[in-house]
């Protein structure tokens, strides 16, 4: 199972955002997308999910051209975790997660006992079983993000695309979400996520893709591609990448060099 973009051109109708983007994501792997504001991360995600038409090149999902797949067929292969948001009606967390089962339901069907079971299972895996009957609109942003990831799990797709899953979360919740993401990949799920914090890539990513000026600046293993020079070019500020001792081993961190740059 693989999600691959080949020489992909994407954007909105009448407005090209990015060109010649090539990468692939395997099941069980975490690919972290870095890029400054406005670099087109969300637009790229929308295109990968089939929500925007491919403008050039192709997207191959599980060996098939994305353009040949039906809406629910795509949803069974790749799920989407949007940024934690409000909702318009006070569904319970259980109901929100159940919506992830939609792609497995017939057009006129309502969720069966099996679907309820899958939803509860996903809720447990995200560690929010105590929130199952809480009202989604009344829980915290971090809890909502976990609920949305649970919804993606209930969808039982082998690939998950997450749009800035750590945005708007406090420090502790960011760490918790990153830990869950690692756990998902250990379960064989491929995760594509975007983030604004390079350190998150060091923590959870198998590979990193850097999106800059509508193209891929680099794509590869974090230790190799995330150099100070590359990050400077990506964000336009001076940074240092250094190793800190952590338990038995070391971990790389990225620090800004200050305002004088």
């Amino acid at each position, binding site marked *: 199972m693989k999600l691959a973009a080949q020489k992909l051109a994407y954007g909105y109708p009448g407005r090209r955002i990015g060109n010649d983007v090539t990468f692939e994501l395997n099941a069980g792997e975490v690919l972290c997308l870095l890029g400054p504001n406005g670099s087109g991360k969300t637009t790229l995600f929308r295109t990968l999910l089939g*929500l925007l038409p491919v403008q050039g090149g192709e997207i191959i999902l599980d060996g098939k051209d994305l353009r040949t797949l039906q809406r*629910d067929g795509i949803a069974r292969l790749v799920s989407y975790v949007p940024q934690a948001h409000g909702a318009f*009606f006070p569904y319970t967390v259980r109901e929100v997660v159940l919506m992830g089962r939609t792609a497995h*339901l017939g057009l006129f069907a309502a969720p069966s006992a099996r679907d309820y079971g899958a939803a509860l299972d996903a809720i447990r895996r995200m560690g929010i079983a105590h929130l199952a*009957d809480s009202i989604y609109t009344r829980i915290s942003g971090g809890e909502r993000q976990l609920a949305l990831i649970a919804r993606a799990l209930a969808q039982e797709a082998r690939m998950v695309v997450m749009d800035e899953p750590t945005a708007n979360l406090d420090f502790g919740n960011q760490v918790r979400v990153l830990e869950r993401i690692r756990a998902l990949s250990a379960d064989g799920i491929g995760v594509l996520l975007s983030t604004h914090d390079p350190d998150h890539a060091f923590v959870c990513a198998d590979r990193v893709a850097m999106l800059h000026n509508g193209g891929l600046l680099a794509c590869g293993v974090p230790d190799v591609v995330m150099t100070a020079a590359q990050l400077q070019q990506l964000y336009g500020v001076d940074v240092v990448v250094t190793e800190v001792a952590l338990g038995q081993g070391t971990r790389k961190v990225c620090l800004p060099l200050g305002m004088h740059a």
Partner: protein
Amino acid sequence: MKSRQSLMLLAAAAALAVVIALAFTVGRYPVPLADLLRILWSWAGGAPHGLDSTLETVVLQIRGPRVIAAVLVGAALAAAGAAYQNLFRNPLVSPDILGVSAGAAVGAILGIFLSLGVVAIQSMAFAGGLAAVGMVYVVARAVRGHDPLLVLVLAGVVLGALLGACVALMKYLADPYNQLPAITYWLLGSLASTDSRDMWVAAPLLLVGLLPLWLLRWRINVLSLDDEEARALGVSAGRIRLVVIVAATLMTSAAVAISGVIGWIGLVIPHFARLLTGPDFSKLLPVSVLLGAGFLVAVDTLARTMANIEVPLGVLTAFVGTPLFLWQLATARRGWQ
């Protein structure tokens, strides 16, 4: 959780049954409950009731069609309101606010104005309602860079004003002795003149509209999310949205064509039902249908018994609905965020 839902459904059904029994028994010719049951039993093919034939006429010819019409219209308006609210992600939309009622009214009045038959009036009401909701939707999509829900409601209000002007124009042009009273009376909403012929046209349309709402109940839940999110969950959002809008508009138009413009039910009843059941459409729809039917039967009974003359239904629902809605707005925010 599950038993709570069934209890709610049972309570709503029981309330509807009580209101219907009340509607048959009270009025200028009181019908004792025992007599009512005997008449219904004999009508259903049981033993002859042996009662005064006036009573039978009152029950079967006068009150019967009217109660059935109230049940159907109330159920239709509440179901359509619930569907619109989910679909447009806004608990404040309703058939009246989206301009559907006004559009259907313009179509139906044009039918009266041209002295057309029942089927033609129904079709024109449907075309008018569909045109109105279509225009509102197109305007809301075309105006970008604003809160889309606000634009939607504003577009409905503005279009409603335009359609109001069309209604005024037709009233001005109508024959003041025959057509004008009919139009005016009909615009205020009334079930007094429903006969069984109207019902045979409207009832199938109402059921045809209700069926997709029930079948698509889970998809309608998912459509209350962002369109993009709904599509990522595997729902062909555009197509299903269209089917649901057409179905809800068909129900509203058919209801408007029998009863005239009866506001507030489509706004208040789904809102109230949501407080009882939560937002899950598969629970919301049946409870909305039962409550809407019960509410309109009750209001219609009130309309014909509270004074010597019939009180227009649209006036009564507004007098009852406005304080109810304001009270909900002030006390509870549980129905929506």
